[in-house]
């Protein structure tokens, strides 16, 4: 039978084991309570400053909400926000600076150039989960970008939704005449070739393919071409706050009746309201629910409460950039919750797997339906129409659409 001699050596051994166990579990406990640090790189100055500021506000208020509710599984969330000035070298330097200060568990950037610049080294060495404000089509390539997740449908998905809507709703026997107006940037050109091909497949006639500068004040050459082409529908792609509002305004002055449409970044209600009557009927795709007022869903109601608390003039419509950053943050939060619950370390690979394994995820009202992550993005969106008669309420004119099921 086993017997333990109670000697000094045994006593020391037992005390030592207990001490070691205490230290280890304290260290583990301390580590598990260590704050989670995220690096957020946004264009706070430069041509994208308008949306950059709104995105930064989204991350700031998300962190406020999370920390008010006990953090992520008890761990406080800290966000390091940096200005990229929409320059690649600056954005890479920002991430490296953040990494020198803390262990970064999630990084979000301002756009496609940031994702492309950071990904090669990140995929190989740092392996940080990433997201960004880019919905570029090739970012859904999981082989090239295994750790980056697009917070919605990509640009090609979005234009496909619009084209399918045109096909379904167009009246008259002649094929619908479609114009594409886009910026001379990657952001603008990204979905155009695939979209034109899809339009032809649907039997739509592409009557104008016009590339413009990213920002411009004089858009009369574009509108003159529109007058010649007489499109039934005009789709904008690749702009922030410039060009597309000017085109709409001038086209209406010229008496053109084209139905104007846009993808996510050309759906900002603030700009539509400023355009006034000229933008009545403006249609576009948004992956996110537009209105927070009266929502009973967990996240959307939290957004509503925070917005009203921090902005007395809040009108019940969180902006697109704001919602995009909330959803990117939500994806990261959900991935971390799953990973922590599974007892796994928080690494980019574990977080990415957690996201890919998500099934029918209830996003708390951000999306109106449960979503899955397919090809590193959430290919779900809805088409809205701005109604001047209802104070530019974005009225949904389609159900929630899932592309590439």
């Amino acid at each position, binding site marked *: 039978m086993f017997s333990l001699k109670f000697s000094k050596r045994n006593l020391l051994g037992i005390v030592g084991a207990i001490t070691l166990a205490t230290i280890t579990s304290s260290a583990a406990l301390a580590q598990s309570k260590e704050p989670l640090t995220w690096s957020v790189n946004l264009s706070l*100055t430069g041509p994208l400053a308008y949306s*950059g500021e709104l995105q930064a506000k989204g991350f700031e208020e998300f962190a406020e909400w999370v920390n008010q509710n006990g953090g992520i599984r008890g761990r406080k969330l800290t966000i390091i*926000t940096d*200005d990229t000035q929409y320059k690649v*070298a*600056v954005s890479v*330097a920002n991430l490296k600076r953040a990494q020198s200060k803390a262990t970064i568990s999630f990084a979000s950037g301002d756009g496609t*150039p940031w994702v*492309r610049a950071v990904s090669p080294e990140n995929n190989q060495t740092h392996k940080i989960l990433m997201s960004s404000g880019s919905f570029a089509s090739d970012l859904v390539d999981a082989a090239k970008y295994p750790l980056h997740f697009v917070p919605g449908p990509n640009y090609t998905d979005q234009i496909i939704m619009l084209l399918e809507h045109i096909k379904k709703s167009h009246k008259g026997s002649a094929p619908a005449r479609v114009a594409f107006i886009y910026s001379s940037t*990657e952001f603008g050109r990204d979905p155009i070739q695939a979209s034109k091909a899809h339009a032809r497949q649907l039997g739509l006639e592409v009557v104008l393919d016009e590339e413009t500068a990213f920002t411009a004040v004089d858009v009369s050459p574009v509108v003159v071409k529109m007058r010649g082409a007489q499109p039934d529908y005009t789709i904008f792609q690749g702009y922030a706050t410039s060009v597309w509002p000017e085109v709409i305004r001038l086209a209406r002055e010229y008496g053109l009746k084209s139905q104007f449409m846009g993808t996510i970044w050309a759906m900002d209600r603030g700009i539509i309201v400023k355009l006034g009557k000229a933008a009545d009927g403006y249609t576009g795709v948004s992956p996110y629910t537009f209105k927070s007022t009266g929502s009973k869903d967990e996240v959307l109601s939290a957004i509503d409460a925070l917005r009203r608390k921090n902005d007395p003039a809040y009108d019940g419509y969180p902006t697109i950039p704001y919602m995009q950053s909330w959803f990117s943050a939500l994806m990261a939060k959900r991935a971390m919750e799953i990973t922590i619950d599974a007892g796994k370390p928080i690494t980019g690979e574990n977080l990415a797997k957690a996201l890919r394994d998500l099934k029918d995820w209830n996003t708390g009202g951000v999306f109106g339906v449960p979503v899955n992550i397919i090809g590193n993005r959430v290919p779900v969106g809805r088409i809205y129409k701005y109604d001047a008669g209802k104070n530019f309420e974005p009225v949904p004119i389609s159900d929630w659409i899932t592309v590439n099921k």
Partner: protein
Amino acid sequence: MGRISIWVSLAVLLLALPWASSGYVVFLACLCGVNIVATLGLNITTGYTGLLSLSHAGFVAVGAYTTALLSNHWGVPILVCILLSGVMASLVGGIFGLPSFRLKGIYLAVATLAAQYTIIFALRQGGPITGGDSGLVVSIPQIGGLALDTNQKFYFVVLAVTVLAIWISRNLFFTRIGRAFIAIRERDFTAEVFGINLMRYKALAFMIGAFYAGVAGSLLAGFMRVVTPEQFSLTESVFYLAAVVVGGAGSIAGSIIGAVFMTLIPEFIAFALESTQEAFGFRAIAILGSVREIVFGGMIVAFLVFEPRGLSEVARRIWARLKRTKSSSSDNAHSKHT
């Protein structure tokens, strides 16, 4: 003995940097090296020869894309890529330098804008070859089977190439070619009277400057591992020109000081802004970010007005004063002793 110890200390510091500091510092060091090489090239063309060029970023792009294509398609080792990228950029620079035979000053600058826009347009429209707007991801640089897959490893390539570029530039101006460049800048008609073939030496100035730009582009491609047309915009050409002006046109030390200054000052400002984030949130960064542009522009204007010979002249005066102080204190000590 004092000078030798300074150089030795600097060499030890530079060699030990990857082990003694964070990835962020190494990244900045690599970026400084790339910008030093590019600025040296532009200083040869603009500072020493007096040919104003707004196309330097375009030539950097040629070098970067050449390296991307050579390493992605044929697995060419990085050192060979660097040399070939320089040659390629040099040839392109020679072609776009042709207007310099007839044009001067602001007219030449406008003509070089054509190079800048043409090169970037060609890269954007290059389809599957250049990746268009998406650009190209560059495969991991290799030296003899060793993969330089981190900034820490690639840093030594950047350091070696930068030191070599500085050494070559310095010695260039002890040669006939270098003296011809200076003569063209001072009075090109007189230089021609004295037998300097203007056409040949102006073309050479563009080609040598573009060679350096191509080498810088190759280094940039190797350590960023991605090349896109947006990285090489007109703003970057202006950046290099500002580095020449701020550092000191017609000065090798000026190229180094100007490039390091232009690279690090925005980082210092960003570092200072971070301390405001805790108190004022991200808004402080946005507001003070705009102030940064004003501060930066103001500094460049201040240099043009108060010290047109740039930071190298400031450094030279400080060094001269230190030497005078040291020699006068040793004279005093000697006279007390006697």
